[in-house]
Structures are given as C-alpha cells and as structure tokens.
C-alpha cells in the first residue's frame, strides 16, 4: 500500500534510502542534514532497516566508507551539507573516478566563513567538476522520487557514476509537506538489485585504481564524459517511466512552465523554481509573456534543452543562489556557454539572489522579471550580474 505522509524532506530522504533497500549507510552529522541520519538511525534501531550503519568520525570517512562498501558490492547511501561536503571533496573525485554508483543527499547550506547554517548552492556547486551528477529538488515529493530515480540512473551500465540529490536546507529539509511513499513492491520492480561495473572479489584479484600512466589516464576521463552524456539521455527516460509507474514526473532535465510562447524565460534551480511559477502566474495576469524553466539537473548540464528554449525566447534571466567569486553565478555561465554558437541567441542577464538563506519569494522573482523585461525592450543587458535585494 502506498502511504501518504506529511513530513520534512530530510525524513523523506531517509524513507527513500529505506525504499531503495540500501545496505550500507555511512554518515556524520551536520546542520541542516542531521535529521536525515537521525531518521535512518530510528529505522535501524526499530528494525525497519536491516543495514550496516557506520557512524563514522568525519564526512571524509563517510564518503570513503561508502566507496569501500560500494566496491565490495552493496548499495550505499549518505547525506551531508556544506562544510561536510567540502571535506568530502577529495573522496568525491575518488568515487566518480572509481565509477561507483553512490547516491548522496546534499542538504544545501552556505559555506563559511562567516558561519551560516542557511541555504545556498555554494556547497554543491563548488563540487561541480568532481564527476558527480547533480539533481536539484523543488519539493519533498521530488526528493523522494529523485533518490529512487538516481539509483536507477547511477546503476545503469551506460552510466556507473555517483549522484548527489540536492535539497535546500530548512526551505525543504525542515519543512513539512505531503509526500506519497509508494508501495515497496512497486519500488522493487522499478529499481532492481544493486549493480556496479566491478567488485572486490577474491576470485578475481585486481588492483583497483592503481597508478595510471599518461598513456591511459585520458581515456578513463573520456569514459566519464561519455557516461555523463549517456546520463543526459537517460534522465528524461527514467523520469518518464517513474511518472508512469508512480504518478510523479519532474520535468526530466529541465522543468518547463509556460515557456512555449514566452518572451522572457526565468531560469532557476531548486525551490526558486516553485516561486518562479507563482511569479509567472502573476506576471501573466498583467499580460506579460514570461515562462519558467527550472534546471533540475546541473551535471550533466542540459545544454540541448537550453538551446531549444532559446529558439523562441528573446531574453533569459538566470537566477543563481550562488556566486563564483570573480565571475558570476554558475547557472548564468553555463547558459551563456550553451548558447555561444547559436544563431540569434536571446539576451542573458544573471541575478545573484538568496545567498546564505535570504528569502527569494515570487515577489523577488517578479522584480527580477520586470527588470529583465525592461532590458529586453531596450535590447541591452545593462548589468551582466545584478545582486538582488542587496543592502545599500
């Protein structure tokens, strides 16, 4: 029987790990991720999850223990935030380079200094080039669904890469929302038992990840790039299949809302996508042709989808909950890069908003849209990167 819950995204991430029948969880507490590992502890101690739960002494060890467990042949899960993710950085490269299908929930939290416990994407986006696939969720149902989808994707032989499922701290992590947890049997049918490209096996004694000379290293990197490209094709397919089975679909790579006839498209990630939809509704009431495109998958980056969206629109506004210091937001950069070789591309304006947990409401996004429309009508982006709601 499917189960309707009203619960936080962190608890829901725990339910997803349980539904995915993970065998080893290695985790370390950090705000705002903690209630994920607490939920799993509750499942383990009440006998609802029969797993090895390694309460490690750091996030670095959490990721490495997951690497060891995945290499020894079982499905693994972990969760972290912010500095915990940064501490894992080196191990993230090792996981993807080893082609291990590990899934991790990242509860987004701003990086210090100064200390902040509130959300932005500076933690996960700093891990952009680690070879991990990155999903960004807009609500608690999507957190559950994406974790299940991510295992299916990661364990596909055309992919064999790890993935992080990102959800913003507090906005989702500690907010109660209704979520439908499907029947276990249906999840089992959708997600077959653990599969990986290789395994530590005493009958096939290999040296795994030993020293590789310049003669071979590039080919290994190229295979990761190929896997990312394969994932780009598989993500919409898996999302669709999931939707047909469980009733929830999340837009594949990019969730589009009223983009068909839009002059201006608001590009966001995470929960800003939900606010952007309301902003679009309000702007449309005023006769303004605005659409929303929520980039759900940041790696692999949906370049082709962005190019398709650019065909009709005159203007893109990329709203980043992140700043790459000395440049701009990553979303703006990737969108501009995607459009570079296109004929008559739309104008692209970048907006930095919501850093360290500052609210980005539909009103905020409405203001961004109106400014963008003004620039669109003037035929010129007046500021390459605009910081939104900044104190004077």
């Amino acid at each position: 029987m499917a189960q309707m819950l009203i619960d936080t995204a962190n608890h829901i991430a725990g339910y997803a790990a349980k539904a995915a029948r993970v065998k080893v969880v290695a985790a370390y507490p950090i705000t705002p991720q903690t209630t994920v590992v607490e939920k799993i502890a509750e499942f383990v101690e009440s006998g609802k999850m029969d797993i090895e739960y390694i309460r490690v002494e750091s996030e670095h060890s959490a990721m490495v223990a997951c690497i060891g467990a995945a290499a020894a042949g079982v499905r693994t899960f972990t969760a972290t935030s912010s500095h915990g993710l940064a501490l894992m950085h080196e191990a993230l490269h090792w996981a993807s380079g080893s082609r291990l299908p590990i899934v991790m929930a990242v509860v987004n939290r701003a990086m210090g200094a100064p200390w902040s416990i509130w959300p932005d994407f500076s933690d996960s986006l700093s891990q952009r080039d680690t070879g991990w696939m990155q999903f960004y969720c807009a609500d608690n149902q999507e957190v559950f669904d994406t974790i299940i989808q991510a295992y299916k994707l990661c364990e596909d032989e055309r992919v064999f890469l790890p993935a992080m499922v990102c959800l913003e701290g507090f906005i989702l992590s500690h907010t109660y929302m209704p979520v439908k947890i499907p029947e276990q049997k249906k999840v089992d049918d959708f997600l077959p038992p653990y599969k990986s490209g290789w395994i530590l096996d005493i009958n096939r004694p290999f040296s795994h990840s030993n020293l590789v000379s310049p003669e071979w290293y590039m080919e290994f990197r190229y295979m990761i790039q190929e896997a990312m490209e394969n994932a780009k094709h598989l993500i919409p397919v898996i999302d669709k299949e999931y939707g047909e089975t469980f009733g929830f679909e999340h837009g594949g790579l990019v969730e589009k809302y009223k983009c068909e006839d839009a002059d201006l498209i608001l590009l966001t990630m995470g929960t800003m996508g939900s606010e952007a939809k309301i902003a679009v509704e309000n702007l449309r009431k005023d006769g303004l042709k605005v659409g929303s495109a929520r980039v759900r998958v940041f790696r692999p980056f949906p370049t082709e989808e962005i190019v398709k969206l650019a065909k009709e629109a005159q203007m893109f506004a990329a709203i980043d909950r992140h700043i790459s210091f000395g440049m701009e937001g990553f979303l703006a950069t990737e969108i501009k890069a995607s459009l570079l070789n296109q004929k008559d591309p739309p104008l692209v304006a970048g907006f930095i908003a919501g850093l360290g947990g500052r609210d980005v409401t539909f009103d905020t996004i409405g203001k961004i849209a109106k400014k963008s429309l003004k620039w669109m009508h003037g035929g010129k982006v007046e500021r390459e990167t605009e910081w939104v709601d900044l104190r004077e």
Partner: protein
Amino acid sequence: MVTIKELPKEEYLLKGHAACAGCGTAISLRLLFKALGNKIVLVVPACCTTVIQGPYPYTSFVVPLQNILFESTAAAASGIVAALRQRNLKGITVVGWAGDGGTVDIGIQALSGAAERETDFIYICYDNEAYGNTGMQRSGATPYGAWTTTTPSGKRERKKDMPLIMAAHRIPYVATACPSYPIDLVNKLRKAKEIKGTKYIHILAPCPTGWRYDTSKTVELGRLAVQTGLWALFEIEYGKFKLNPPSDRLIDKAKRKPVKEYLTLQGRFRSLTEEDAERIQKWVNEDWDKYRKLASNSTSDFAPYGKI
C-alpha cells in the same frame, strides 16, 4: 607457531614488483601473503605500496586490492567489512596496509574512528620512519636525530608511540614486528586473523633508500633495531602485554647492544652528535623501564571494554 619450513610455498607477491632493492616492506608483504593466504581484501592508501604493486594494467599482487586516499585506509576498510557482512560472505579478512605517514599522521583519525567502532579488520602500519614514496620527508614516526629531506640537520622531536596509542583504544590485539624476524611476524598475523575486532600490527620496515645503508643490510638493520632495544617486539592480547623473543631477553640491560651499533650503520644518522647518541641511549633505557612495568602488570589499562 610455525617454522620457516611450514610457511606455504605459494607466492602472492609476484616477481617484477616495483619495490627498491633491499626493501623491508616488500619482504613484509611477501610474509603477509604467506601468513594470511589469498582470501583477503587489501586496502592500500598512497604509500610505497602504491608503487610496489605496479602500474595499470599490471599488478604484482594476487589478492584484490582497493587503492584509496591517503588518510582513509581504515574508513575504506570499514565500508568493505560492512558490505561483506551484508552479503554474508564469511572467511574473508580485510587488511589495511599503510605506511607510517598514512598511519601516525594523516590517517590517524580514520584509524582511531575504526578502532573505536570495533571494526573487524587487521590494520598494518609498515613503518620506514618517513614519507618514503615522496622521497623521504619527516613523519611523526621519524626518530630523533634522523636526517630527512625536510629535516636536513636531523629531526629534533621524538618518534610517536603509535602501538601504545592504539593499545589505549583497548582493541583486542596490538603487536609490533620486524621482517628480520619473519616467524614472529607470521605468527602475529595469523593470531590477528583469528581474533574478532580491530587488530593493529606495527612493522618496522628498514629502508635502504631512505636510511642510507647498503641494500644487502636490511635484515641486519632490522635485527640491530631489535637487539639494541630501539624497537621492541611485543604483543598486547586482550590487554595483556607480552614481550616476544628475542626482545623478552632484553629486559636485562646488559643483554642490549648499544644503540650506536645501529645508528652508525645508517647515513641518516651521520650528523648525530655524541650527545645525541647518549640521549637516544637514555631514552631506550627509559622505554625498557616502561616495558618492564607493562610486562609485570597483571591488570592492564589496555583491556578491551567489550560490548555492554
């Protein structure tokens, strides 16, 4: 207890490995495999063994080997142990095999964590008293007075006492060893295999490249380290401290060779002053006062707590 003749003939360390001539670690590896056989999973961080195993697509080991990040041997082993248990695979020993830098410095956190969690595996530190793979830089295990490339005039601090740090974790088995005493090493490895929980073995592995001595003298150097009392062979089994032969005879100070016999054979101690050598001799004597006390204690501070 085995004798040399009873050691298996099978070789799991193949010819063509990439260790330096006279490498004490390579001898230890060969003995490791002879002691434990091939039903093991080896976890190796960045260290000399990264090179010794040979580069892709080759390997000189006949056991599955997980190469892992420098500081993470014990964390990776924790994950492997957990997965094997979930898969209900029995009779496979997980072995962490790390250098002294990877153990006493950068890897101590993960090791301490794994020991506290009572992870069921054998952790072996092969100690050549410096960061050998990067060309002999000082580590926490480098002894006082030793030249390294980052202590060109000799290290001014003493060696970290890692075996007793591990004993303070109250794990069921801690032992020291040296490849110059192969039977002792094999016995300790086999004993460790039969014990449940975290087992720690610290091997002093002479290194001609870093210690600056002739490659033919590795076994002799290891013997001298033990005979001078600079390196004591002991084991702490369920908290009970015991000196092993020949170290058990060295409680009597008169039976210990002067440390100078060991120090003068090595280029790394070339700039050692007379005063330094006397200081080292004094510390060795103090260490043996400690060993005497540990050996005579019937109740030990190192006894495992056990699950409550």
